[in-house]
């Protein structure tokens, strides 16, 4: 691995693994993610995809191995605000509307230049549901509300855990389009999914998990 390579890389994992009760959850992983790249995390149910993403997000501590961010050991305050994570739990308050939920997120993370809450909600397909409490949305509509965060907030690396689940065909196409735009603009993304991805912005990197 050359020096030029490692400066260009956004995120780099070296012999990375996570221990639960002193047993590794998945076999050690080595991978590298550059700006403009999409990585697909593949593996069967229970192979550790969610665990990996939560570790990259800084929610779990690194078990063994090393994680580097822009060539230097990853520190939480270094990359704060540059990473967005979307997990199985959507992080939406059920009593607030999609609009209010997004406003709060923007208050903490800031906004992309030129992005507005209303425009983002329209783009994600929630027009007419802006002021409905999230509790009253259908499963796919909730997912869309969570995905709207990606469009609104500024971030370099997206960690998406099964972003396609519960979405209809139009929604799946929408996510694919969003991913393409993001990587074309120099962002990177790590996506877990069981199928449904179709990516036209270059060959995605594959990360295979083995339990």
């Amino acid at each position, binding site marked *: 691995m050359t020096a030029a390579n490692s400066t260009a890389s956004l995120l780099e994992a070296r012999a990375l693994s996570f221990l639960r009760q002193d047993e590794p959850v998945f076999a050690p992983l080595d991978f590298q993610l550059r700006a403009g790249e999409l990585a697909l995390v593949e593996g069967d149910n229970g192979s550790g995809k969610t665990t990996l993403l939560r570790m990259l997000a800084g929610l779990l501590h690194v078990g063994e191995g090393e994680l580097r961010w822009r060539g230097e050991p990853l520190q939480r305050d270094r990359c704060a605000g540059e990473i967005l994570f979307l997990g199985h739990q959507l992080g939406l308050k059920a009593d607030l509307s999609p609009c209010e939920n997004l406003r709060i997120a923007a208050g903490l993370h800031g906004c992309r230049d030129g992005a507005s809450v209303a425009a983002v909600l329209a783009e994600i397909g929630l027009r*007419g549901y802006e002021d409905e409490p999230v509790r009253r949305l259908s499963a796919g509509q909730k997912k869309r509300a969570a995905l709207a965060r990606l469009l609104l907030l500024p971030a370099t690396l997206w960690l998406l855990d099964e972003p396609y689940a519960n979405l209809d*065909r*139009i929604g*799946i*196409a929408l996510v*694919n*389009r969003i991913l393409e735009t993001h990587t074309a603009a120099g962002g990177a993304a790590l996506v877990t999914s069981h199928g449904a991805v*179709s990516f036209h912005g270059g060959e995605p990197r594959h990360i295979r998990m083995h339990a």
Partner: protein
Amino acid sequence: MSAPQTFFTMGGYAAYVWPAYAVFFIVLIADTVAPRLRRRRVLRELRARLVRQQARQDRAGSNSIPTPPSP
């Protein structure tokens, strides 16, 4: 003591009798007024809803074909 005066002093119990009657009337008047106000609000909301529905129908009519998913 004149008749109107005894009426108003209530034999020394005015401080109890008149507030009681005041409460009676104030509460019942409030009970009468509240639904009138609510009726006005309900009708206003109803008209707003009709306008929204009309707008939605117009929109649905104009672009009923959803954008096809990219292959």
